[in-house]
């Protein structure tokens, strides 16, 4: 017993040291990536992209299930995109509320006979509506099949060569599509997918479907998610992209070349982590074929989303994530530590398994081993105290650096009180929010072990709330 506790204790400390070293190694990459992004803005060529008749068209696909509270705001924001050629494809995935009715009325949609290409598999389409006015809005009504299934339907009915997927509870910045398409326009042969930054919109001022003043959420739970998202996107994704190992193009805001997604069979419907799985599959497929490609990340385009503001909703979301992660890792386990899959196989996948999936397990082991070790006299209480303090402080420093990247690159939160709130959230996020999330993740792993599936429910409050 004593030896076991001792081993777990040593492993926990080693694990914490390893994860901190990984974060330290990612820092210069994130810093360099963000610096480059900021510099390139000086000669951004948005005007050229907007004026050029050769800018490729983009279909924005939005899956929606019972989204009547937010769908009209969301479509209004999408229609405000500064991009020359785009269409909006809303896929109503068997909603039981007035999602479709609201859209039909608001945009004067007319019912037409659907003619899907049938290049992807999804539940049958019941009705198809197209816009009469100058706005190119399409509404697809289909049998319920889940988010991935709805996205497949949207992809199959999209008319443009590039597809931007986003959520109904999201608001895109007006320039988001133009900036997102920039890597594609610069390297159209190789760039097949682009991920964009997702940020928390709670409490921000929204007018006519636009975020006019980003604000820190009034609620603590959403506030912690602001700094968590900053760390994930401006620190993590920028760094992984710098070494060509971006392992996820977020489902909330991602852009894909349609023909390549069709080639790999679209989204996998039997997972709750369909965005991660698709990204992995694209890497795998193109590496297997030896085709040159790039899956990249653009930090500038921003998609604002409503983050869970209460514990049950947060729990439902976070319990799902480890399941999706595991399903993707397991499905693509043969890529793990294989040189032919480059940095994705050698670095990103092992990182996902060891530091993303296993971290709640390791933390749980530490929280059990330390008290037991102290009571048995195997572990020194001062060592435990030092471990906890160092882990907290290190996590805080990393989050503060992510806030620094935001401040350096964007300064979205203009008000002094928002900066204060952001700093406070960064200081305390590692103190109880991370532990709370770890508990949900453990529950998710437990659900996975018991083969419990399903998406859970996301309670919408609408934009501008805490």
């Amino acid at each position: 017993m004593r030896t076991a506790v001792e081993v777990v204790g040593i492993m926990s400390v080693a694990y914490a040291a390893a994860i901190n070293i990984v974060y330290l190694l990612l820092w210069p990459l994130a810093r360099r990536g963000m610096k480059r992004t900021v510099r390139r803005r000086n000669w951004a060529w948005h005007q050229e992209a907007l004026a050029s008749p050769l800018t490729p068209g983009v279909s924005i696909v939005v899956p929606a299930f019972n989204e009547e509270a937010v769908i009209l705001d969301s479509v209004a924001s999408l229609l405000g995109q500064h991009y020359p050629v785009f269409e909006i494809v809303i896929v109503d995935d068997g909603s039981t509320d007035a999602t479709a009715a609201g859209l039909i009325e608001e945009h004067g949609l007319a019912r037409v006979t659907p003619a899907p290409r049938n290049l992807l598999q999804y539940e049958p389409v019941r009705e198809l509506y197209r816009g009469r006015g100058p706005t190119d809005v399409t509404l697809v009504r289909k049998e319920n099949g889940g988010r991935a299934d709805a996205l497949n339907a949207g992809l199959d009915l999209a008319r443009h060569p590039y597809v931007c997927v986003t959520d109904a509870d999201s608001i895109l910045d007006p320039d988001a599509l133009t900036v997102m398409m920039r890597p594609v326009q610069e390297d159209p042969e190789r760039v097949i997918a682009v991920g964009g930054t997702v940020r928390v919109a709670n409490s921000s001022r929204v007018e006519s479907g636009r975020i006019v003043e980003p604000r820190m959420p009034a609620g603590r739970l959403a506030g912690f998610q602001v700094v968590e998202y900053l760390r994930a996107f401006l620190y993590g994704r920028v760094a992984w992209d710098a070494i060509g190992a971006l392992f996820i193009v977020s489902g909330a805001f991602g852009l894909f070349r349609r023909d390549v997604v069709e080639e790999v069979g679209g989204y996998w419907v039997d997972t709750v982590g369909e965005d991660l799985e698709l990204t992995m599959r694209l890497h795998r497929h193109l590496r297997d074929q030896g085709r040159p490609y790039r899956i990249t990340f653009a930090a500038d385009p921003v998609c604002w989303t409503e983050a869970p503001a209460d514990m049950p909703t947060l729990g439902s979301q976070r319990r799902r994530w480890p399941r999706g992660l595991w399903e993707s890792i397991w499905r693509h386990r043969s890529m793990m530590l294989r040189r032919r899959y480059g940095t994705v196989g050698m670095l990103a996948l092992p990182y996902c398994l060891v530091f993303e999936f296993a971290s709640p397990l390791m933390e749980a082991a530490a929280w059990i081993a330390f008290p037991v070790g102290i009571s048995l006299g195997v572990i020194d209480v001062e060592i435990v105290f030092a471990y906890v303090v160092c882990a907290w402080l290190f996590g805080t420093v990393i989050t503060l650096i992510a806030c620094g990247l935001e401040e350096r690159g964007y300064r979205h939160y203009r008000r002094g009180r928002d900066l204060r709130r952001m700093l406070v959230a960064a200081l305390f996020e590692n103190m109880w929010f991370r532990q709370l999330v770890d508990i949900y993740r453990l529950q998710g792993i437990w659900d996975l072990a018991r083969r419990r599936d399903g998406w859970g429910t996301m309670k919408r409050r609408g934009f501008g709330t805490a």
Partner: protein
Amino acid sequence: MAAPLLASSALIAIGLLTAALLCVRRIHAQRLLREELAARNRAEPVLHALLEGDEVEHHRGADDAALAAMLAELSPSLTGETRTAIAGYFESTGAIGRALRGATHPLAHRRAESTAALGDMCSDQAEPALLMALNDRDPDVRLAATRSLGRLRSRAAVIPILHSLACRHVPRAVAANAVLTIGVAALPGLRTLIRTEHPATRAAAVELLGRLGNPRDGEALRDRLTDEAPLVRERACEALAHLGADDVGQALEDLLADDARSVRAAAAAALATVGGPGNASRLLEIVHDDCAEVAEIAAATLAAIAPGVVSREVTDENAHPRLQHAASMLQAGLA
């Protein structure tokens, strides 16, 4: 215990320092923003005087920078004497000379910044340096040079820009926009390049000739419909549709049997503009094309040029779903 204590202290210090740095940066940034706004307000009367052709005294410091920034924002939309006045202003302040030096800076981002700035200063003095920058090893510098040459309306840049476009040294949208900004002055270069040996250059020239040319270019573009390179054939279809060329229906119809699906799709799409009911029977066959995208376009074209044929066809219960879709679009007034 000393080591963890030391580590904790160091981390606390780093954390506090980072937080303090963030606050200081914020205060500094807000001060800069206020100063910039004030400088812009001071520079505004000078800007108006300059645009109206009045003599403007040379400002120094922040006002000078603010004025330059405001002029740069306006320069793409200005023409004629105003551009000359802007160029004169930047030449007199020495900004052109500084930007030209910056265009040869060892750091790529400095070169790109200066190259982009040169395009906003409206001075022809920048043209040779910008043409050189088109061959820079850094893609951002090449991109900035292309954009700047377009803004300077440089005739000499047409052929180098199209070569850069063909070699994928610059994004298609930026190169095309630069050539389109140069306008009709680019036509002689484009007319030469549609017969050049390099297929990608030919394709780029054909595409832009379709946008900038006139009906007299139809004949030369029609020849490109039988080009050996599929990309050129595809672009020729699009170009002829843009020009609204006459008597190309049959030639485009022939391309509906092309091996390359992109060519078939482009031909079907072009027929929507320059085709007629005479092309309907062939399009009806293409609605069954193996490539879903080609078939989709063919059905949409059919609805546009021969709605009667679509309505007749869908009276058959087993009509192709794409025809039924096209018919329903017609019925809803969306075709």
